[in-house]
């Protein structure tokens, strides 16, 4: 057994007192004897309290007299009960019972509670006598203890005292009675439990939680015979009891409840229909479906919506067809609830129902079905959607295309491309592009996807080409990169720009040589700048080795003319942490527009310098940086600190 901190403390204490030399290894009887010795000694309070705790775990009848002797001790009475309360056998009961007549105040309250925990039937008479005690704490403790004992005999004095109990102790007496009733019902004495529940629920003055609890007990204990009581509360004007009945109806195991409440739906006022719908939904019993679907067709709007939701909550596919009949209901909220309901109903039968209407409904129904196909992710709808995407109705056509694109998988790439290449509708192109990008990104064979995209390029109109180029950027790979480069030479300006941008945003450093070449050879100024910026951006790609990144920066520096690109260059160099990059930064210290950023970059590189790296270049750069940064004293200060730090390295 592992020794807890408490036990360790106890052992240490006992060892130091010489009372208990080897408790950890001692058998239980021996341990108990040692613990009793502690209690009988002049040990400190802590040691005695710890001994009581240990006795709660291992104590027997042997320790009862000494623990009982401590019950009157104001300081130790709790710990004495702590030990006694779990000791098996009648000795502890007798000791606690015997203490009843000797104690007052809190020690007495404690003992009464412990007798309750121990379910001591023999204490009934003595406890009942204390129900008239002048101390309210004693009366309440007795009421609860009688409840814990929980027998018919224990209930008798509680029932007798209930009518006259002072308000301050009423809740405790009610609690005792509840516990008795629960114990009686659990042991099959339902008639006796019902008497208690009925007494409680007929109290003239009682808190709402008592009345609600009594109603619950009265109905559940009566089982099927409790249904009239349930209906009475559900129909009644007492809102507190109606809400209690609602919870009870959900809790009731009796099979007839669902049918009875479903039948009640047609007779109930709208506010009660809401309650009944909530119950029927939560009970999940399909026998309520006809009643709920009947209410869904006509009546109060809120109740109809509640009925639809309850029918869906039951989760039976049989609700699908009736709900489709509500899709064109004049009440928008009803139609919306029906559509949402169908979307949430489980089962292939529901999918089949949606497909049937997608193939045969009118335009409005088909539009709703397309939404449902999308929400339910019904992949088997693809052939139907393929047909509808050529429909003459634009709204239907667009919806079908968007839905098709959402559901399409790799096998639908060709079909998507066919639809894309001649398309000029921006929304449809965007939907198809999104679908193609998702398919390419998740594909196990991206090369095959790229081959199909590249093959479609010559057939595509400008808008479609731009979409295809963006998709190639998502797919990546050498073949896609080559196609992107080729598209730079396209005669259409939009396609040309999309290709340049595609290269600039390429995921890997593979595009760097192409961008460098374009930066050098492009005739247009915009193309030159875009390519140069894209090339510089390659210095940040993770797959580009550090030396190549520096080379990119060096090559870029020789071509940069504008301050904007100089800032980009500085940003790229700041990440390199290479002292050689300082040679590219230092010239920027003389450029007023980027001077401050250049100083910050010098400091950033200097801070990352390894001690093994050359000091000279860094020192020179820092000195110049400190000189030129006249408007940012904190930067100058940091530069001086770094210089000083480098001096100490010597």
């Amino acid at each position: 057994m592992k020794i807890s901190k408490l036990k360790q403390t106890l052992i240490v204490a006992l060892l130091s007192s010489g009372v208990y030399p080897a408790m950890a290894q001692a058998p239980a009887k021996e341990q108990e004897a040692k613990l009793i010795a502690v209690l009988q000694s002049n040990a400190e309070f802590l040691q005695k309290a710890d001994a009581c705790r240990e006795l709660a775990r291992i104590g027997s009848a042997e320790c009862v007299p000494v623990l009982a002797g401590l019950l009157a001790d104001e300081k130790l009475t709790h710990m004495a009960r702590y030990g006694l309360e779990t000791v098996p056998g009648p000795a502890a009961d007798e000791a606690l019972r015997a203490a009843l007549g000797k104690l007052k105040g809190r020690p007495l309250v404690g003992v009464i509670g412990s007798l309750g925990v121990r379910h001591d039937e023999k204490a009934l008479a003595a406890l009942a006598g204390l129900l008239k005690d002048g101390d309210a704490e004693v009366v309440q403790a007795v009421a609860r203890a009688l409840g814990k004992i929980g027998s018919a005999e224990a209930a008798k004095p509680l029932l007798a005292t209930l009518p006259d109990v002072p308000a301050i102790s009423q809740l405790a007496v009610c609690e005792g009675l509840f516990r008795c009733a629960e114990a009686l019902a659990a042991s099959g004495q339902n008639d006796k439990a019902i008497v208690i529940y009925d007494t409680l629920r007929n109290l003239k003055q009682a808190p709402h939680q008592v009345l609600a609890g009594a109603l619950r007990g009265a109905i559940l204990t009566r089982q099927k015979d409790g249904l009239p009581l349930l209906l009475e509360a559900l129909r009644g004007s007492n809102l507190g009891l109606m809400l209690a009945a609602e919870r009870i109806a959900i809790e009731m195991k009796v099979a007839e409840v669902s049918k009875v409440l479903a039948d009640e739906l047609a007779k109930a006022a709208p506010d009660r229909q809401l309650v009944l719908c909530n119950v029927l939904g939560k009970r999940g019993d399909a026998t309520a479906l006809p009643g709920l679907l009947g209410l869904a067709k006509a009546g109060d709007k809120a109740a109809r919506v509640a009925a639809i939701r309850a029918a869906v909550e039951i989760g039976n596919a049989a609700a699908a067809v009736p709900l489709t009949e509500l899709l064109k209901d004049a009440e928008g909220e009803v139609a919306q609830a029906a559509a949402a309901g169908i979307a949430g109903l489980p089962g292939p039968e529901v999918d089949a129902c949606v497909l049937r209407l997608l193939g045969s409904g009118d335009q409005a129904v088909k539009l709703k079905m397309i939404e449902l196909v999308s929400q339910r992710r019904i992949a088997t709808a693809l052939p139907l959607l393929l047909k509808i995407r050529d429909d003459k109705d634009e709204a239907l056509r667009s919806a079908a295309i968007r839905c098709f694109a959402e559901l399409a998988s790799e096998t639908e790439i060709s079909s998507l491309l066919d639809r894309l290449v001649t398309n000029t509708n921006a929304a449809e192109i965007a939907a198809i592009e999104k679908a193609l990008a998702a398919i390419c990104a998740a594909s196990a064979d991206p090369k095959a996807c790229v081959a199909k995209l590249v093959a479609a390029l010559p057939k595509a109109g400008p808008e479609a080409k731009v979409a295809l180029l963006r998709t190639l950027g998502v797919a990546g790979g050498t073949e896609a990169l080559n196609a992107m480069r080729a598209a730079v030479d396209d005669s259409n300006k939009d396609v040309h720009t999309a290709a340049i941008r595609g290269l600039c945003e390429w995921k890997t450093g593979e595009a760097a040589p192409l961008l460098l070449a374009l930066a050098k050879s492009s005739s247009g100024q915009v193309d030159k700048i875009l390519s140069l910026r894209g090339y510089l951006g390659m210095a940040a790609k993770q797959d580009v080795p550090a030396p190549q990144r520096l080379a990119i920066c060096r090559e870029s520096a020789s071509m940069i003319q504008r301050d904007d690109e100089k800032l980009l260059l500085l940003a790229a160099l700041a990440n390199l942490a290479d002292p050689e990059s300082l040679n590219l930064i230092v010239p920027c210290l003389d450029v007023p527009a980027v001077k401050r950023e250049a100083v910050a970059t010098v400091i950033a590189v200097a801070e990352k310098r390894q001690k093994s790296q050359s000091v000279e270049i860094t020192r020179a750069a820092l000195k110049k940086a400190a000189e030129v940064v006249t408007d940012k004293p904190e930067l100058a200060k940091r530069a001086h600190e770094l210089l000083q730090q480098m001096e100490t390295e010597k």
Partner: protein
Amino acid sequence: MQSESLNPASSSRRRFLKTSALTGGALALPYFIPAAALGRDGAVAPGEKITFGAIGIGGRGSYDLSCMLEEQDVRCVAVCDVRKERREAAKQQVDGKYGNKDCVMYNDFRELLARPDIDAVLIATGPNWHALASVMAAKAGKDVYCEKPCTKNIAESLILAETFQRTGRLLQGGMQRRSLPNFEFAASLAQRGKLGKLTVLHAHPGGLGTESSGWPGAQPDPGKEVADWDMYLGPAAWRPFNDGILHNGGGFEKGGGLVGGGCLEWGSHCVDLCQWANQTDDTSAVEYWPEGNQLCAKYASGVKLVMRNDGWLNSGSCPVRYEGENGWVETGDSGELFASSLDLINGKRAKSSGYPANFHIRNFFDCVKSRNQPRANAKVACQSHIVCHAANIAQFLGRKLQYDPVKNEFIGDQEANRLRSEALREPWRI
């Protein structure tokens, strides 16, 4: 006390019907009846807001309170703490929010519970008080948001569940991860069979030691007005005043005075999440045993629960992992999800990081209105805490234990059964 009977012509009744008709009712069933309207003082709560009181406003309590104050349909009217400085700080927090001086301070939470105008209470005392104060609140007719761990032992767990069921009051245990999207999604994968038949559930208990709270050095008692030490100790064994326990004793008497806290700290979160994923919210495991530096349990279905400390993926604190015959999923406070296959976790999902309580608190107040059961209700809290307590007892005794979740007793082990409860210091009785 007066009866709750409502006159059909009462304003509350009229409002109920009117609201039902106008709001489409079913969208958010407007069943909430303010305590004041239940006839106990004849008044109606202003604006039909849920009125609540906060009990125990230390670090965690202040956070919970600040979340509750953000909710537009509730109003805090009272605060209670045994420490004067905390009471005053909490009152300042509440009054500052509402721009008045109305929040009432209490030292004794029984006075707060006796107020008929209060519908719900936040209980964020130390764990020593959680179960007892929650049960007393339910008996007083209040709904309760109670911080975790909600109970100190198996007996308290059972009493908690039966009291809330009997009184029809609602409990939301502070296991707020039940209301966070990544944990919900991971649990739903297990529940919907996406992982196949479940085999092993992993929970991070955040330590397994079962030390009790010990005996602090005695310090001068500042007096009841400054800090009511007797009330702080409440049902726990008496010990001398100690400022460290008073201000930093978040774990004081967690798990009681003998067995100690053990896996309750995070187990009340992670084990609870495993119970949820395993769809065993209404029962507990049947076998418990320590195994190396971890604690294990087994359900009647054969599913194994492992409370382990090491070897988690990078998903942040308080992680859980569910393994089935067809796959696994793991998540934690980072909000990230890891799974055996990307297919399991693809798709759009709301994402959160950390472990904010806002959503859980919102769920509680929604339920106070609708009377539906909150996510971490009393039955849920009861069973997940029983698993933790039973595991703690197995750890404490250092042996394998069999547990009967119907009788709620260990099979053939009297010593273990004696650790299911402990006597409370008088006059307290749960």
